[in-house]
């Protein structure tokens, strides 16, 4: 079980002080938060991508590349990478480079983006959102897996004889999660490929999250990737923690009440009852988080949203300290009664091992060759590993 944080990258005024951080401060804060996440023992740091104010992260691999240099162990991911408006060729290139620089500590979560006016800036149309996600990802997979790609589709210039440079580290692409709040097509896509499925589990009742996860699990099995309970599931969640729940409620309420997305709506108490938000003591956060498993089954990744709604960096770092304190209990809680056949989330090391195992059982050598030289880029590797 992996634990981590995901952050949107919003620039929001602190409602209690009226102070708005600068873009520079927020970008530096992302680095502080990521390094702190590693320090307290988290497994994953995931950052959002946006191309419009009030958000800063328009270039996630620049940010994650810098964080990769400042950290040693934590896995870097995204929440989400826009598979709709980004060119899949550029995604393949950027994340290949990042994967090399981070020595494989990289995976991606793909999402569509829900701001209509942003799409045309990249020559796209939000009404094509699902089709873009399907076509672009189908291409992205080939770019990462096939030495030479000839391709033609609806949404981008055709490719003739395209070879990705650099090739993925150790010939193994980063693991991919597909994130969606309510589109069954995306759960289906994740299931079809046997990729991970992530539900942000923030705004909606967890009964809805369960529906989406169950759909993904059922179809994962249908497509022959293994039993439904071995599908790779990630959940979001959010909390605000203080040693006493009264302090947590008092301190977080002014942020909740005007928070982007859900502020000015239901009361914090209603929102806590109806969604996975927990504002309270460490013990309450532990209990609530462990209860997610009762809804979606044993899962692989739990990410928390801590850094948003104008909370100052100092407060976010304090939240991380508290999360570090309850982390052992969360780990042992989720480990309890977890069936042995439920896998962990794939990592670069596990994917490299799986690829090696597959090559040794494979009887036929890959035949793809470079159009020009007639050589396979994998020739050396293939002969070395084949029986």
């Amino acid at each position, binding site marked *: 079980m992996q634990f981590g944080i995901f952050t949107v990258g919003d620039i929001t005024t602190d409602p209690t002080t009226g102070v708005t951080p600068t873009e520079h401060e927020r970008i530096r804060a992302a680095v502080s938060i990521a390094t702190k996440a590693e320090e307290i023992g988290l497994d994953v740091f995931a950052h959002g991508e946006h191309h419009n104010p009030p958000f800063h992260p328009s270039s996630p691999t620049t940010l994650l590349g810098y964080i990769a240099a400042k950290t040693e162990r934590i896995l870097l991911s995204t929440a989400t990478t826009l598979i709709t408006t980004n060119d899949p060729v550029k995604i393949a290139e950027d994340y290949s480079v990042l994967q090399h620089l981070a020595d494989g500590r990289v995976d991606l979560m793909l999402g569509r983006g829900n701001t209509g006016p942003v799409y045309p800036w990249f020559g796209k149309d939000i009404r094509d959102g699902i*089709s873009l996600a399907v076509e672009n990802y*189908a291409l992205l997979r080939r770019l990462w897996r096939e030495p030479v790609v000839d391709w033609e589709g609806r949404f981008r210039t055709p490719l003739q004889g395209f070879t990705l440079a650099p090739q993925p580290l150790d010939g193994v692409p980063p693991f991919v999660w597909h994130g969606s709040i309510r589109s069954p097509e995306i759960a*289906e896509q994740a299931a079809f490929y046997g990729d991970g499925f992530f539900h942000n589990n923030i705004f909606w009742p967890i009964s809805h999250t369960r*529906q*989406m996860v169950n759909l993904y699990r059922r179809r994962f099995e249908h497509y022959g990737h293994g039993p439904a309970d071995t599908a790779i599931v990630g959940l979001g969640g959010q909390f605000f923690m203080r040693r006493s729940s009264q302090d947590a409620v008092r301190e977080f309420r002014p942020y909740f009440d005007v928070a982007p997305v*859900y502020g000015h*709506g*239901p009361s914090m108490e209603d929102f806590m009852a109806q969604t996975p938000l927990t504002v309270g003591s460490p013990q309450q956060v532990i209990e609530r988080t462990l209860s997610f498993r009762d809804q979606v089954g044993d899962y692989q990744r739990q990410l928390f949203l801590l850094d948003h709604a104008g909370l100052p960096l100092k407060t976010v770092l304090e939240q991380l300290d508290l999360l570090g304190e309850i982390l052992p209990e969360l780990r042992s809680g989720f480990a309890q009664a977890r069936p042995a056949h439920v896998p962990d989330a794939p990592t670069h090391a596990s994917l490299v091992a799986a690829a090696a195992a597959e090559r040794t059982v494979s009887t036929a050598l890959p035949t793809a060759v470079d159009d020009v030289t007639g050589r396979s880029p994998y020739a050396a590797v293939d002969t070395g590993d084949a029986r």
Partner: protein
Amino acid sequence: MTATIVVVSAGIGTPSSSQLLGERLAHASQRFLATAGVPVEVRHIELRTLASDLANHLVSQVPSPALADVYAEVGRAVGVIVVSPVFNASYSGLFKQFFDLLDEGTMASRPVLLAATGGTARHSLVIDTAMLPLFHYLKALVAPLGVFAATGDWGDPSGHLGARIDAASRAFAELVVQRPGTEAVDEFDTDIDFADLLRGR
């Protein structure tokens, strides 16, 4: 499970004329359906009791449990009777908000009886000018007769309102018998063929 007729009323008072009209339409429809061998239960939904839930749902995307329950009920109903007071030449904002937040497709092919209330009969075309386009857009199966009740209708001894209620309810009941609303499709329980998505469908 017994078939259900749901009455959605956007009246503001308690009781309101919209609520009363909804009750009379439901009662008459229930009677005609029973005669036709289709016993139905009636569920009354007063939108005023859900006003803050609707506002919260709009800005937070989270339906309250009460609202989710009501939407599920509409999604199972064999027919829906909708009643709005006339505000500024149209249905009320509360009425519109309920249908704005209803899951897409819920009203499709579902029999609907349109009704409205207002101060004078000069508003009576609101059923045709405002409600009909909305429910056509939602692809509902709209019953051929609607009922508009003006303030004056309630005290009118001629019985015209009762006759109009009966006529509209009978037409609605016939529709419910012929083409009853079916359980709304659970999109999370429906298989998509990914090959179709890959082909761009």
